[in-house]
């Protein structure tokens, strides 16, 4: 099965790259909100 079979280096790279494409902008957005939310407890 896919999850149990060994991934090749190229497959691992594609998997990590795919997630980074969406997680980097998402993390930037979350950091903006967290910075704003900190004002609530100051």
């Amino acid at each position, binding site marked *: 099965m*896919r999850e149990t079979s060994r991934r090749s280096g190229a497959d691992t790279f594609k998997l990590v790259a795919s997630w980074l494409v969406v997680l980097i*902008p998402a993390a930037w*957005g*979350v950091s903006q*909100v967290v910075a704003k*939310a*900190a004002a*609530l407890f100051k």
Partner: protein
Amino acid sequence: MGFLDRERCIAPPGYDRWRVPPAALAIHLSIGQAYAFSVFNLPLSHAIGITTEAPGDWKLSTIGWVFSTAIVFLGLSAFTFGRWLEDAGPRKAMFASATCFATGFFVAALGVQLHSIWLVYLGYGVIGGIGLGLGYISPVSTLIKWFPDRPGMATGLAIMGFGGGAMIGSPLAVALMDHFKSATSVGVVPTFVAMGAIYFVFMMFGVFTVRLPAPGSAPAPAAAVRSVRPPAPDVHVNRAISTKQFWLLWVVLCFNVTAGIGVLGQASPMIQEMFTGRITPAAAAGFVGLLSLANMAGRFLWSSTSDVIGRRLTYAIFFALGALLYSLVPATGRAGSVVLFVAAYAVIMTMYGGGFATIPAYLRDLFGVMHVGAIHGRLLTAWSVAGVAGPALVNYIREFEIARGVPKAGAYSVTMYIMAGLLVIGFIANWLVTPVDARFRFEPDPAGAAARMAA
């Protein structure tokens, strides 16, 4: 354009299914920008006067219809194109979504340049709204097919992106407007053009990387699939909407959204009025941000939990705990406890988001996988109704209470109790959901169906 065909996005043997959720997230993180449209409200209302409102400038109430139109067309396009999407496949639907969403920005930019509000309505509201609807439902059935062992988690992951889209869209729009504004422009036109282009490219990542599992392949370990509730036998979308289960879920979604969306829209003035003098506008903005985070996190956490405890119990928790917390919120305000107030709302918002994210898996449990995207599209009309009813309910009751002399700090109490009441009705509707009768099952062979009916 043959690369958009359904057959061309079938995954090769050994394809890693964990590469599919980022494709769905690329679409949802983009279209989720719609929730951040309000950052354009003030600049658009000064499009002529630049620093202040000038004669001929649009009023905020006029601009407010841009977002409302987009949400209405989200529901309408999800309803209309859901069935087409099942045949066309996710890649074509995502491409159509990206094209509409980007074109919506470009037409809206032209509308601002020519100072024609109708062009802005047509662009962002109608064309962009169609892109929202197509994009919202396009990855749902694909993810359910890839993750038969974790359908709640998979669709929750994508729909979490829609909740998070505003977190990217809002600061991005602010940064672009700051960059483009000048003494003679508020910078909205180039910002719309830039955002249309940026989102189109980002959504193309989803278009090119989305894959469907090969027919007959087993995307998940068989043991894992056996351990979860199996999907129901397939029901055709046209038959699904004639079942009581569809309409019970429509009520479930509508009331869960109504209870959350009204408060979400009024969160900033509400916390400032309930804790007068203690909460600054900046702190209130932080409260709104915190609710957005809770909304986003709840989409993933609750939908994943539903894979373990079941959808019916998950929604029962939403409605029971939600009603309890709404009933307690006025008391936290009277006690002057900001922490308890914020905590109660954060939990409520996780369940608001969780309600959106868990519904596709609930539909899959009841109506099977075959037309789950199309059925989901039709169910989203509940969102359109709630999107109008929720804010109207909160605003109207608040104004009514203030008009009859209730202090602003206490003007929200009745609203909270009504929201709790709505959730009790949702609880009952959810509890009445039972498996779909066998007579509604899809029968590829009409003769077989007739025989079954006769029997």
